[in-house]
C-alpha cells in the first residue's frame, strides 16, 4: 500500500500525545486544511502518524484585543494583523492510526510526533487507501471524542472520503461506512440519531 503522494505542508507540531496533537500554522496556510481532513506527520524510520483535523483555533493576543475595541480599523491594519501576527493558528488533530513499514494500522502509534514535525495534508489517494483499510477501525477513535461535535466531524470526514472513493470508482464505501457507524452506535439512540441527521445533509 503506497501512501506516498503529493505532500502539502500545512503546519508544524506544537504539542502532541499518543491520541492527539496540535500543529501551528500561518493564516495564509489555512486555505487547504478543513475540518475532518486526513493529515499525517512523518516521524521518520518509515513511521507516519495519521490524524483527522478536529478543530482549528485562532487565538487572540493583546493587539487584537486593542484593535477590536477600536472604533475604526483601516483594512490594511486588519490584513496585517491577520497575516503577520505572532501567534499561530492552531490545528487540532485526532490521531486515528499510523503507517509502519508500508502497513496501515487503525490503532494508536507507538509514540507521538515531536514538536516542529511537519503536518501534511493527505491527498485523495492517501485518503482512499487509509479509509479503505480494514473495517473502519479508526471510527472508534472518533466516537470516543468527548468534547467535540462528533456528528459534524463525521459529516465532514465522510463527505470528503466519499467523494474520494466515488472518484476512484468505489460507490460501496460510503454505505458500508454508514452501516458500520449505525452498528457501532445502535445502542446509543440519541447519538446515532444526531449523526444520521447530520449525514442526511450529505444526500
Amino acid at each position, binding site marked *: 500500500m503506497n501512501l506516498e503522494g503529493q505532500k502539502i505542508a500545512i503546519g508544524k507540531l506544537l504539542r502532541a500525545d499518543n491520541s492527539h496533537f496540535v500543529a501551528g500554522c500561518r493564516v495564509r496556510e489555512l486555505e487547504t486544511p478543513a475540518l475532518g481532513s486526513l493529515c499525517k506527520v512523518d516521524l521518520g524510520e518509515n513511521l507516519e502518524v495519521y490524524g483527522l483535523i478536529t478543530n482549528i483555533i485562532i487565538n487572540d493576543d493583546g493587539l487584537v484585543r486593542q484593535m477590536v475595541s477600536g472604533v475604526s480599523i483601516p483594512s490594511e491594519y486588519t490584513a496585517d494583523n491577520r497575516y503577520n501576527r505572532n501567534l499561530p493558528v492552531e490545528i487540532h488533530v485526532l490521531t486515528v492510526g499510523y503507517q509502519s513499514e508500508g502497513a496501515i494500522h487503525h490503532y494508536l502509534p507507538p509514540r507521538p510526533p515531536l514538536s516542529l514535525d511537519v503536518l501534511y495534508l493527505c491527498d485523495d489517494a492517501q485518503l482512499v487507501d487509509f479509509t479503505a483499510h480494514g473495517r473502519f477501525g479508526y471510527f472508534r477513535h472518533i466516537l470516543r471524542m468527548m468534547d467535540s461535535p462528533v456528528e459534524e466531524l463525521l459529516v465532514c470526514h465522510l463527505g470528503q472520503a466519499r467523494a474520494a472513493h466515488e472518484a476512484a470508482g468505489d460507490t460501496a464505501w460510503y*454505505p458500508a461506512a*454508514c*452501516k458500520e457507524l*449505525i*452498528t457501532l452506535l*445502535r*445502542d446509543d*439512540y440519541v447519538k*446515532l440519531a444526531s449523526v*444520521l*441527521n447530520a*449525514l*442526511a445533509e450529505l*444526500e
Partner: protein
Amino acid sequence: MELENKANTGNKPIGYVVGGGLEANLQVRLTVPAHQVQEGAFLVTDSGNWRFYGLVTDLQLGSTNARFADEQSEDRLPQPLANLLHGQTLFTNLAMMPALMMDRGPEPGSPGYMAWRELHPDSAAPIPVKTVPSHHAPVRLADAEDITELFGDENDPNNFRIGETREQGHPVCLDLEKFVKRSAGIFGTTGSGKSFLARMILAGLIQKNQASTLIFDMHNEYGPDSASSDDKKPVSGLKSKFGSKVRLVGLGRGTRFGDLNPDTTLEIAQTDLTPEDVLQLSQALNLKETSATTLDALYNSFHEAWFGEFMKMRAGAVVEDDEGKKVPAPDSVEAWAADAGVHPGAAAGLRSKLERINHRDYLVEAPASNGLRYIVEALKKGEHIVLSFGKFDNDLDYLMVTNLITRKIRDTWEEWTNAYHRDRKPGNEPRPLVVVVEEAHKLLNREMASQTIFSTIAREMRKYYVTLLIIDQRPSQIYDEVMSQLGTRVTGSLGDEDDINAVLSGLAGRQALRGMLAKLQPKEEVLLLGWGVLMPILVRSRRYDSRFWQEVLGENGKGKNVDDINRILGYQDDDTD
C-alpha cells in the same frame, strides 16, 4: 467455514441462532425478510457434528432500541440511509422449536471420520433433541433431502404422500405400515377438510394394501360418489375407484348408498346378540344393576336363543290354577323368573327395556344372509367394508351395531393372532385391520366410551393387529383414555381451546404448537403429530381430486374398470361380485 461446508447446500441460511433453549425454544435472528418465513416452517441447523431439526412456532419483531421501532425514520432520513438504519436496528427473531437431532459425524474424508464411523457403523438416525446448537449456527429451511430423511421416500411402497411442505413443496409422506400399528385420529373443525383428508388416507391404505378397513360411515361419505358440500362438485367415493375391493354394506333392508345398491345388507340375527352386548348398552337402555344377573340366567336357560325366547315371553300374563287362583302363565316372564330363580320384577323390567332393541328392523330372528360373517370374512380376506347406517341414526343404533361388529372382530382377530403366535405358520399372520369411526365423539365420549369396546381396541387391540382411526371435529369430547392411546394425529384447523388441548395432549412442545394449530388454513394445511411421525410437521395437504386419483391409481386410473384396478393392485384372483 466448516459448518457451512458441512451444511446441506440445498437451501441458503435464512438466519442464525442467537439464543434460547430446549424449553423456551431457540431464538433465530432472521437475515431474510420476515415474509419469506411462516409459522410452521420446517428448519434445519447444523452445529458441530449434529444436525438439528425444528419448527417455526413464532415470529417476533424486535429492535435494538424501542425508539428505532417507534419512529418512522424513513420520513426524516434519505431512503438509502433509512434502509441501512433499519437493517441494523430493526430485526425479526423467529422461535424454533427443536424437535430432533442427528449425529452426522465429521466430514467424510476428514481425519476423524473413520474413527467416528467405526464407533457408529449404522447409518445415523434422528433422536429427540437433547442439546442445543451453538450461537450463530446457521439456520435454513429444510430441503427435499431433509424431508425424505425424516418422513421417508415417496417411492417407498409403505409410504403415502399426504402433502407437501408449505414453503418449498417438498413431498411429506406418512409411513402407512407404522400408521396402522397404533390407533390414529383425524381432527378438524367443520369445513377444515378432514373428510377429504380421511378419504385420501383411506385411499392410501387401500392402494398400498397395508390393512383392511372397516368404515362406520355415518353420513354416506366414503363409499359412494357424492358432491362437495361447499361447491357441489362431484367427489369420488372409494367404491367407484377401488371396485370390488370395497364392499358397501347397508344396515337393515332398504338402506342404499345414494344411487348404489349395497353389496350386502346387514341384518343381525337375534342369536348373535349376547348378554355382553346388552350390558354394554346399560346406560343407553337405563338398565339396573340386577340386569346382569337376569341376563346370565337367560343365557343359561336358552343359550344363544335367549333374546328371541325372552322377547316371546309375555310380561304379567297370568292364568288361573286349579283352585282359581291367578298364577303366572307358563309363557310369562314371571313364570320363567320363578323357574330360573331371579326376581320377577327385575326380569319384567329388563324385558320392558329390551323392547327398544326388539323393534329395530335390522335385528331379526332369521336373517336372509349372515351379514356379520360376511363382514368379518371380507375383512380377513383383505377387503374393505363401508357400513352405512341408513335411517338408523340414533345413538342406540350406533352403539349396538358397532359394538356387535367390533366384538365379533375382536374375538376373531384375537383368536387369529393367538393361533399365529402358537403356530408361527408363514402366511397366517393376521391382516392388520383399521376400524374407522366417523363422528367419533358419538361413540367415544366420556359417557359412552365405557359402554363400547372401542376404548379396549384403542388400548389393547394393537397387539392383535386391530387399531382405530377416529375422525372427529370435537376431540375434546372424546374420552381421555382413547385420546391418550392415539399414535398418529392428523389435524386440520381447530378453533376451540379445549379441542386444541385434546389433540396436543401428551405431546412434547404442545405450548408452542398450540398457536400453530389455531391458525391452520382450512382445506389447505394440516399438522401431522404423534408417534407415527418423527416430529410434528405442517403440511399443505394434497387435493382430493381427479389428479389425486390419477397419481394413486396411475395414469389410467381415470375411468378404468374394476378388473383393471384389481389387476393393477395385484388382486388377480379377486372374486369380484
